[in-house]
């Protein structure tokens, strides 16, 4: 059986599974559509949360970022997992106790203000929409690479699948599909990693393999990696830039990712689906267990792939001649076709010279070897996808990677689309436009909003704005600077009133968006930025990706000052906060 047929079979089987689940888990009520009837077991919910959270970026791109950046990429690893501690301790149990359906609904009720609710809806829609574009384009790429259909056709297939289970089943359909998608994606991610770890270190567990000895030379894998990359002029893999500015940026970037993670609505609403407050606490732990399986494997995949690439190109060591282009392995040939690996024979010797040409200190050494520039460029995104080929694993593993990448993209897209459509049908239509809408009417409105959201996401996937990659900073920045502080203050302070919350959220939103635009260009139009987005060129010495944490701090400060100088929170709202803080009575709150 050839690779293409295998890919079709494995991906087709996974899709059949998702659609089967969709038909089985149809939603009949708004409680089922928005919160899966609050009957999801905490372990199942943890698994679904993990699939919801781990996007095409986590599955496809992260290992590549770690491989080529080394230690600084730890910010992603800590940031995208550390946020779950904040969720579990500061938000999830209380929001579950509150017992409503959406994040803006809590903000609107707690701050007794439809204005606050509206600001929250706007933040939610901006953050979620920018995020969903990446998922749709990711799905399109995976389709076109593995199923040899055009990008457009791939997108339509992906949209049709999501439409099936999201519109039919709402949160209920999405939850059970995500459980299946999690299993597909984690198996696809870990199998190649286990084989590669065995090949390089003899240890079958990749996270342990990362700190084990490299079998061919007997020295630790990471020391070996540091040696070879430095001999090619790259910075040390494990090295840290100890300058105060770099350290401060790494701290703020990590913090922004953490509070951004805790503030992303599509993750928060997952905790509305479990039966009890105690389950919400456990469920956050289970979510992190399932997420950690990938995030602990990821740094091993990155480091090992980097070493594999260097060893492939310099089979006799980095001080000897690199391999001839004609003798390159099959995986380089396969990926050259996609344009994600490029080779240019700059000095005309027919060999692949791969080194850091941007390092002035290395220029002399390179010139002495007759090198006239780096000749090989490898795109971050191919590492995970090409891993089974690099490790020469059988064809079914490659097919599994295709299904895994699609599972990661589709599961996250579905979660985001649900967050968007419930904000539209529940927070806009039911709360503002037509409060008397019937249960049936609201369910229909929710399904129509979902269908419209999918259509918009597909259109954006077909016509991606040139800035798609940069908008991730925007999504995290907004979630960190607006939604997280508002939720946290709503639970932990009775003093913060409606004016304080609205002023705080608007400050966080405007500050963060303006700061990002100042560095990335206004509305991401290239060339319209006033500051360089670098350590030394940026306005406050803080890169735009790390600004969300500062926006959050400003939000807290402004909210406290404004709340102190305006009329205090009414008694019945204080009662509400008191009741959110204790688990007893959660069942009653559900019945709303």
């Amino acid at each position: 059986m050839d690779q293409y047929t295998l890919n079709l079979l494995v991906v087709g089987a996974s899709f059949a599974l998702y659609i089967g689940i969709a038909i089985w888990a149809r939603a009949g009520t708004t409680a089922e559509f928005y919160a899966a009837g609050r009957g999801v077991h905490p372990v199942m919910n943890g698994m679904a949360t993990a699939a919801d959270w781990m996007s095409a970026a986590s599955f496809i791109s992260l290992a590549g970022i770690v491989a080529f950046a080394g230690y600084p990429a730890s910010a992603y690893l800590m940031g995208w997992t550390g946020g779950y501690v904040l969720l579990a301790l500061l938000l999830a149990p209380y929001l579950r106790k509150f017992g409503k359906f959406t994040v803006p609904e809590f903000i609107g009720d707690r701050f007794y203000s439809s204005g606050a609710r509206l600001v929250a809806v706007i933040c939610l829609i901006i953050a979620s929409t920018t995020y969903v574009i990446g998922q749709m384009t990711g799905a399109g790429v995976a389709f076109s690479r593995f199923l040899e259909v055009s990008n457009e056709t791939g997108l339509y297939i992906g949209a049709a699948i999501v439409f099936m289970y999201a519109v039919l089943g709402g949160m209920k359909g999405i939850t059970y599909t995500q459980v299946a998608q999690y299993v597909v994606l984690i198996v696809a991610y870990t199998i190649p990693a286990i084989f590669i770890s065995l090949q390089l270190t003899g240890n079958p567990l990749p996270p342990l393999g990362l700190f084990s000895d490299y079998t061919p030379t007997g020295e630790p894998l990471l020391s070996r990696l540091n040696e070879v990359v430095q001999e090619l002029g790259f910075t040390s893999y494990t090295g840290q830039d100890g300058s105060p500015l770099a350290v401060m940026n790494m701290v703020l970037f990590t913090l922004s990712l953490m509070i951004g993670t805790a503030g992303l609505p599509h993750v928060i609403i997952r905790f509305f689906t479990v039966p009890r407050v105690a389950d919400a606490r456990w469920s956050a732990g289970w979510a992190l267990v399932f997420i950690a399986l990938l995030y602990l494997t990821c740094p091993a995949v990155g480091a090992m792939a980097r070493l594999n690439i260097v060893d492939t190109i310099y089979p006799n060591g980095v001080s000897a001649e690199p391999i001839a282009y004609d003798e390159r392995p099959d995986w380089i040939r396969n990926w050259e076709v996609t344009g994600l690996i490029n080779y240019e024979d700059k000095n005309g010797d027919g060999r692949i010279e791969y080194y850091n040409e941007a390092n002035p200190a290395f220029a002399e050494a390179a010139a002495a070897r007759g090198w006239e520039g780096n000749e090989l460029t490898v795109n971050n995104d191919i590492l995970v996808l090409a891993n089974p080929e690099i490790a020469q694993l059988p064809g079914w593993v490659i097919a599994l990677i295709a299904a895994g990448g699609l599972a990661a993209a589709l599961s996250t897209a579905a979660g985001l689309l649900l967050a968007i459509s419930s904000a539209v049908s529940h927070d806009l239509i039911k709360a503002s436009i037509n409060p008397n809408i019937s249960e049936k009417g609201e369910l229909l409105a929710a399904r129509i909003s979902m269908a419209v959201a999918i259509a918009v996401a597909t259109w954006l996937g077909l016509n991606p704005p040139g800035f798609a990659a940069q908008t991730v900073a925007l999504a995290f920045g907004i979630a960190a600077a607006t939604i997280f502080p508002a939720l946290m203050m709503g639970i932990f302070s009775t003093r913060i009133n409606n004016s304080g919350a609205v002023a705080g959220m608007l400050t966080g939103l405007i500050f963060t968006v303006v700061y990002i635009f100042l560095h990335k260009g206004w509305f991401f139009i290239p060339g319209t930025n006033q500051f360089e987005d670098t350590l030394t060129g940026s306005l406050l010495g803080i890169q735009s990706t790390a600004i969300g944490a500062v926006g959050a701090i400003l939000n807290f400060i402004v909210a406290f000052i404004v709340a102190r100088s305006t009329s205090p929170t009414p008694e019945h709202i204080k009662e509400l906060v008191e009741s959110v803080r204790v688990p007893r009575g959660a069942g009653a709150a559900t019945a709303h």
Partner: protein
Amino acid sequence: MADTHTRARTDGSGYWKANLRLIYICLAIWALVSFGFGILLRPLLSGIRIGGTDLGFWFAQQGSILVFLALIFFYAWRMNKLDRDFGVEEE
């Protein structure tokens, strides 16, 4: 419901204080392993070698994630116990 509120207000403050104390402890550890050991204090830990690199690198790429996991489960276990001790668990 009214009954629940009175309970929460009267004996709930001890419960809430205990919860806050637990949160402070957990978040202090959360910050220590990630921002501390993983970033700011990494130079201080550079003497402790592990698998070809230093302890700070291990915390940044693995250790912090493992501690996060332990923290969430510890908190869930302690809080669920606290709920019962103060009689505010769900029926």
